[in-house]
C-alpha cells in the first residue's frame, strides 16, 4: 500500500486538470451558444466530450496510475458499445425509412405551433 501511495499524483496535478476541464466545458457550451452548425458542431462536441472523458478517467479516476491488468479490464468491455451504437443507428434509419415510405412524408411543424 505504501508503495502505491507514493505513486499518488500531487494535488497540484488535480488542480491543473480541474482548470482544464473548466476550459473544455466552457468550449462545449460555446459550441451551443454560438450555434455552430452541423457537421462542425457534432465533430467539435464529440472531440470535446472525449477529451473531457479522457482527462476525468485517466487523471481524476487515477487510471494512469493503476496496473495494466485493471486498466484493460475497465477500458476494453465498453468498446462493445460501439457495436450497440451501430445497431441502434442502423435500426433507427430503417425505421424512419419505413415510416416515410408507408406513413407518408413527415408532418409539417408549423400548424402544430399555431395550434398552441
Amino acid at each position, binding site marked *: *500500500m505504501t*508503495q*502505491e*501511495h507514493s505513486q*499518488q*499524483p*500531487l*494535488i497540484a496535478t*488535480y488542480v491543473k*486538470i*480541474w482548470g482544464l*476541464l*473548466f476550459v473544455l*466545458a466552457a468550449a*462545449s*457550451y460555446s*459550441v*451551443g*451558444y454560438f*450555434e455552430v452548425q452541423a457537421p462542425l*458542431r*457534432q465533430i467539435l*462536441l*464529440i472531440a*470535446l*466530450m472525449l477529451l*473531457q*472523458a479522457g482527462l*476525468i*478517467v485517466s487523471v*481524476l*479516476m*487515477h487510471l494512469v496510475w*493503476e*496496473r*495494466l*491488468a*485493471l486498466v*484493460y*479490464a*475497465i477500458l476494453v*468491455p*465498453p468498446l462493445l*458499445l460501439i457495436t*450497440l*451504437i451501430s445497431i*441502434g*443507428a442502423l*435500426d*433507427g*434509419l430503417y*425505421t*424512419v425509412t419505413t*415510416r416515410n415510405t408507408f*406513413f407518408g412524408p*413527415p*408532418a409539417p*411543424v408549423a400548424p*402544430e405551433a399555431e395550434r*398552441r
Partner: protein
Amino acid sequence: MTQPAPVSSAASVPAPTGLNSLIADISSDQRAFKNVPWAKVMMWIFLLGDVFVFGSFLIGYMNVRISTQVPWPHTAEVFALTVAGKKIPMLLVAIMTFVLTSSCGTMSLAVGYGYQNDRRRTLLWILITALLGASFVGMQAIEWTSLIHEGVRPWGNPMGAAQFGASFFLITGFHGTHVTIGVIFLLITAVKVARGDLENRRPGFMTGRKGGYEIVEILSLYWHFVDLVWVFIFAVFYLW
C-alpha cells in the same frame, strides 16, 4: 551437507512490465488485480455495469431521435432562461455543468488531503463536494418543474417529437438519482472522517474489514463517474 536456505522464486524473477505484466497478472493464482484494494476493484466493476446502463439509455435516445418523423425540439430554446429580459440559451444547464465540474475538483482535493492524513481538510472538501452535489440536484428539480409546467410529458410535448420527454426524464432522472445517492454516501463518509474512523482504522458498518483513507478515493471514483456521465449527456442530449 546443510540444507540451502529456501529461496523465494518470486523475488529472483524480475517483475514483468508492459503487456507481459497484464498476461502475468491475469494468468496468476488467486488474484488478478495485484495490490489493488478489493473495494476499489468492486467499485470499478459496478461502474462498468453503470457504463452499460447509461450507454443503453443514450443509444435508445439516439435510436428514437433518428427514427421519429417529427422534428426534435430545439433544445437551445427549450432550456433557455430569461435573465433581465434577455433569453440566454442553456443558462441553467451550463451552471449545472460548472457546479458538477467544480465538485469533481473539490472531490479530488479531498482524496489528496486524505492520503496526507489531513483529517480537517479532507472533511472540509468532502462537505463542499456534497453541497455542490446537492445544489446540482436542486437545479435539476427547478429544470424539471419548469419543463413540466411547459407541458413536457414522457408521452408528448408541445415543441416537437413526443420521444423528447421520455428521453429527457429517463436520462436526467437516472443521472440525478446517481448524484443523490452520491451525496448520501459523501455525507456518510464525512461522518466517518469527522469521527476519525479512517485514522483509527475502525471497521465500516457493513464489513469487519478495517477502513482507511482509500475509501475516500473509492467514493471519488463514483463521484467522478457521475460527472463523466454528465459530460456525455450534456454533449449528446443538450447540445447535439
